[in-house]
Structure formats: structure tokens, C-alpha cells
């Protein structure tokens, strides 16, 4: 049962279509991320849910009510901004209480709720401080508490972690996720960081140039990308030009080397120019087990990335990256040496452009 429905949403600014035919159903308590490069329309879509922009066409239904044209202050929606947007003239407690204050709640109710929220974000010691006296991470937690204090129906987060440094970003993102789960609140989280989206979401909407590319769980998005764009944007990826050799059996030719793919390419004809995509971690050095693709290669380069070692190999004329997990007993090949790598036919993806 859908709790928040965006139905055929289109948004134009002048003649430019910024969001195009966006349809999405979000269940109650679900955590959905909008993922895509800068300028693809994530913020605009979120702002339409918040009421700061009105869709050119389409409908937004929240808990059975059409809120498409409702003013932002008439919706019950919590919003978190990248820049925190705390009121500089108010203390932490006053900031958190603002929404209830505006709603003319009783003093006692407000105080109780504010205390509850401050405990939720672990800032008991800072209740009477002003925003400028807090670190970025603390300020964003206050802003989270402020948005949650009004019991919003949906929580909207627009790149809330982008202004923070790496360590805080990771810890705050799990804190946000934990709080969201604990309260069972429905949330939309906008980010351009694929790792963030993969780690925090129930579902991810990958967007590109105003269009939805793919909707799915992080597992689906990563392992079964439906389009070239999704595969490229999420995780790292090898791509190479190829030619169809035999559509029936999935035989491909990459610069003179035969590959076999599990992707259904029966709709293509022999000789069609296509592109193959293979994730670096799907390659491994050949052992004696039988694999679908066993390929002769030359080791070109080796890069140490900490937990992962990235080895660049040349197969025929095409270059591929191959990732293996690091361990202290790893025996790495020499640069320039001839080796054999393998990968399964499921790893060889042929994606729609």
C-alpha cells in the first residue's frame, strides 16, 4: 500500500524540462534515496514534495490526500538542508521547539517534546547553546530534531551530509538511518554519492537528466543495473566496445577476443556494435576450475587501494580493471607478465544505452 505517491510528475522551468514523467510509490516507513549527478533534478523533485515548487503536471498524494498544490506551511513535512538552516537567533532548544510553537502547542507539551528530541540526538549538554557554538555535525543533528519534532508525515533530506567531513558523514548517516528506523518515519534522501545511497536506503531511485533510470534495492541497483548509466554511476565499471558474434549463444567479440555473456541478446543481429560492461571485482586470475570466459592477458599496472588491489590488464587490445581483496599473503603478478583471467558469463553485461 503506497503512502506517498508521485504520479507522472513533470516540472519545467521556462522551456527546460527538469523533471520528466516521474512516478514513484513509497510505502510507509520506507527509506528511499534519489541518486544522480548534480543537476539531474533530485532537489527539484524533493522540493515539489515539500511544496516549494509546484509540478507543471502530475499529482502528489500523501496518505490519501492530494497535496500537489498545498502551501509548504500547510503540509506536514520535515525538511533537512545541506546548510543546516538553523535559526541563528535561537538556541538549540528554541530551534527544535519552533515548529510546535508556531502550531501554538501548550508550553508543557513543547518542553516535553523538545527534551525528547534533544535526548534522541544526544545533545543534552548543548540545549541552551546557539547554532554557531556547535560543530557542523551537531548542527545537522539539531536540524534533524527540529524537523522530527513536529511529527512530520515524511522526512525530506537534501544532501544533508555533503557539507560535513568524511568521518562525521559516515557516522551521521548511520545515526540518521537508526533514528528513521526507530521512529518508523517515511524518508526521502537526496544524494549524489552512490556509496551513501547504497548504504542507507531501502530503495534507490537513480536519476539522470530529469528521468528515472532505475528503481530498486541497493542490491538490485548494484548487481543488476538496467542501463549503462546506472552501471557507470553506481560502483566502478569496465566498459568496452564489442560486436555480436552469435546472438543465440551470447557470443561477443571484443577486439578479436571471444567473450560469452548471459545477457539475452537474441534481439540483436550478428555484427551489431554494442558495449560490454564488467565490474572489476568479477574478474579473477584463472585457477583450474572451468569458467565461462578464460582470457589471456598482460598485466599493465597495479594500484594499491587499501582493502582492495586494482590490477589493470590488457585483453587483446582492450584494457580492463580487476579488483581483488587485499591480504598480507597475496601474491601479485609482475607488471608485464602474461596471465590468464576469468569471469562468469553473468558478469558480462550488455546494457541499454
Amino acid at each position, binding site marked *: 500500500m503506497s503512502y506517498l505517491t508521485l504520479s507522472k510528475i513533470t516540472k519545467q522551468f521556462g522551456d527546460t524540462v527538469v523533471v520528466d514523467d516521474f512516478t514513484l510509490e513509497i510505502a510507509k516507513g520506507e527509506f528511499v534515496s534519489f541518486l544522480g549527478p548534480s543537476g539531474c533534478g533530485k532537489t527539484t523533485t524533493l522540493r515539489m514534495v515539500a511544496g516549494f515548487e509546484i509540478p507543471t503536471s502530475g499529482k502528489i498524494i500523501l496518505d490519501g490526500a492530494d497535496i500537489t498544490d498545498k502551501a509548504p506551511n500547510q503540509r506536514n513535512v520535515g525538511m533537512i*538542508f545541506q546548510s543546516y*538552516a538553523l*535559526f541563528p537567533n535561537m538556541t538549540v532548544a528554541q530551534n527544535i521547539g519552533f515548529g510546535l510553537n508556531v502550531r501554538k502547542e501548550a508550553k508543557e507539551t513543547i518542553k516535553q517534546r523538545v527534551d525528547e528530541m534533544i535526548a534522541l540526538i544526544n545533545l543534552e549538554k548543548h540545549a541552551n547553546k546557539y*547554532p554557531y557554538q556547535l560543530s557542523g555535525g551537531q548542527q545537522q543533528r539539531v536540524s534533524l530534531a527540529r524537523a522530527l519534532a513536529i511529527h512530520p508525515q515524511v522526512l525530506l533530506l537534501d544532501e544533508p551530509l555533503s557539507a560535513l567531513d568524511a568521518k562525521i558523514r559516515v557516522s551521521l548517516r548511520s545515526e540518521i538511518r537508526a533514528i528513521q528506523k526507530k521512529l518508523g518515519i517515511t524518508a526521502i534522501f537526496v544524494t549524489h554519492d552512490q556509496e551513501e545511497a547504497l548504504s542507507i536506503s531501502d530503495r534507490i531511485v537513480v536519476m539522470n537528466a530529469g528521468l528515472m533510470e532505475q528503481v530498486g534495492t541497493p542490491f538490485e541497483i548494484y548487481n543488476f543495473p538496467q542501463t549503462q548509466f546506472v552501471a557507470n554511476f553506481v560502483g566502478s565499471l569496465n566498459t568496452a566496445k564489442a560486436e555480436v558474434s552469435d546472438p543465440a549463444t551470447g557470443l561477443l567479440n571484443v577486439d578479436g577476443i571471444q567473450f560469452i555473456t548471459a545477457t539475452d541478446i537474441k534481439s540483436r543481429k550478428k555484427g551489431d556494435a554494442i558495449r560490454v560492461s564488467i565490474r572489476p571485482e568479477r574478474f579473477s586470475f584463472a585457477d583450474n576450475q572451468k569458467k565461462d570466459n578464460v582470457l589471456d592477458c598482460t598485466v599493465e599496472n597495479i594500484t594499491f587501494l587499501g582493502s582492495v588491489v586494482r590490477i589493470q590488464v590488457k585483453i587483446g587490445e582492450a584494457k580492463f580493471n580487476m579488483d581483488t581483496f587485499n591480504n598480507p599473503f597475496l601474491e601479485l603478478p609482475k607488471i608485464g607478465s602474461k596471465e590468464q583471467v576469468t569471469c562468469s558469463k553473468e558478469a558480462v553485461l550488455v546494457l541499454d544505452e
Partner: protein
Amino acid sequence: MNLMSRIRRIPFWSWVWFLLGALYFLLPLYATLNFSLRMERDVIGFKAYIRAFEDPDFLKTFLYSNMLALLTIIASIILIVPTAYWIRLRLPEARRIVEFITLLPFVVPAIILVFGLIRIYSSPVNIPFTEIRILQPLTTFEVGTDILIIAGYVVLGLPYMYRSVDTGMRTVDVRTLTEAAQSLGASWFTIIVRIILPNIRAALLSGALLTFAIVVGEVTLASFLGVPAFGPYLFLLGQHRAYEPAALSFASFLLTWLAMGLLQLVSGEQGQAAGAH
């Protein structure tokens, strides 16, 4: 770094120019003070001050001008804050034209402004092409004249007030704060009164003080509209007396300095607190 070592680091010539500038400013002030204390032959005393303050017209005109200043400031804030806010939020393309309008008082002298006001508002205002009167001639009754002069003062103070408010709004992220407040359920009125105004307090205060200074000393509008204001009173006093105007000038200097000190205090504090407290 302490103050002494900071002072020592300032180069010699800077000191010379600074002292020359200070002399240029302080000498006339000293002369005025000195003169104002010599009303009685051969004695230094405050007789001129006592005389000036004792005059019932002094208090009456001074209070009247203060009231005008206060009302002008309130009217300016009501007019300018929402305007500047709206321009920042929704109409950035209107900024240039509004800035130009606010600068008009520098181009159009007060004497022209006052004649324009008198010409238009000394006859009744009718709905165009009818005989239906919607406004009595404002110059014919006291409240009407007060409204007229306050409107004129709002115009004169416009360049200072608008600039101050606009600068104040530049230092806070007006748009995002507005959206945050809206999503929490706040109305436009609540946002302006509880978010925008408190965060541009220092800017408002500086605009208000400048407006105050203009209004209290203003002569042209006040004398042509014939109101009992402090400016014309001081002007008249200057023509008939010698010592009292000097005393009042010096007193008003002190007042201005006090106000500026106050301003420094508040804006300094706000600078540190980024708008808090």
C-alpha cells in the same frame, strides 16, 4: 596580541595622518565647546546649557521631532523590510530598479520634494474623472501634516534604511531560513517577525539611527510644512542667539557619539554571535 604591541606596529606616517585628521575634526568641536562654556564673562560655566534646556520650546520641539523620528523609523521598517525581503526571495531582477529609487533623495533635493508634496496634498484628492472625494487636503489639519512629513522623512531616510536592511539580509541565508520555517508551519508574518527581523537587528539599528539623525536635524521639510520641529527651532535660535546654539550643537554631538557607541556595541556583539542573543 595585546593592544600596545599592535599600536607600535602602526608606521610613523600613518600616525601623522591620523593625528592631522583627528585635529581637523576635534578642533572645531573644541572651539564650540569652549565657546558654549563662556556665556558669562570671565567664567567657565554651563549657563548656556541651562538657558538652552530651560526654554520650553526646546523641550517641546525636541520631543516632537523625536516622535516624528520614531514614527518615521517604524514606517520605514514596515515598508522596507518586507520589500527588501521579497526582492531577495522572489524578485532579484527588481533589485536594480529599487536601489535606484532608494537613491533618488540624493538626486532630488528636499526642497523639491516638499513643494511636490504640498502641491499635491494641499488640494483634495478625488477619484479620477469624478467629484468623489477620497482624501481631505492633508495640509489643512495637524495629523494630516504629520502624516505628510513622516512620508517625506521616510523618503529622505530611504537610501540609508534600505541599504542597511539589504546588507543585513545578505549576511543571513534568507531563502533557506525561510524555507526551513515554512516547512515547520510558519506563516509569512511569523517568518518576518521571528526569523528575519531578529537576524538583521544590528542592520536595522544602524538604519534607524541614521534615520533618527536625519529627522531630528531636518529643516527644509519641517519649515515649509510649518510644523513645530527641532530643526527649525535650532535654526531660528542660531539667528537670534550666540551661546545657546553652540551648547545645543555640542550636546547633540555627544548624543550622536553615544548612539554610535551603542551601535558599535550591538553590531560587534552580533558579529561575534553571528546574529545570536
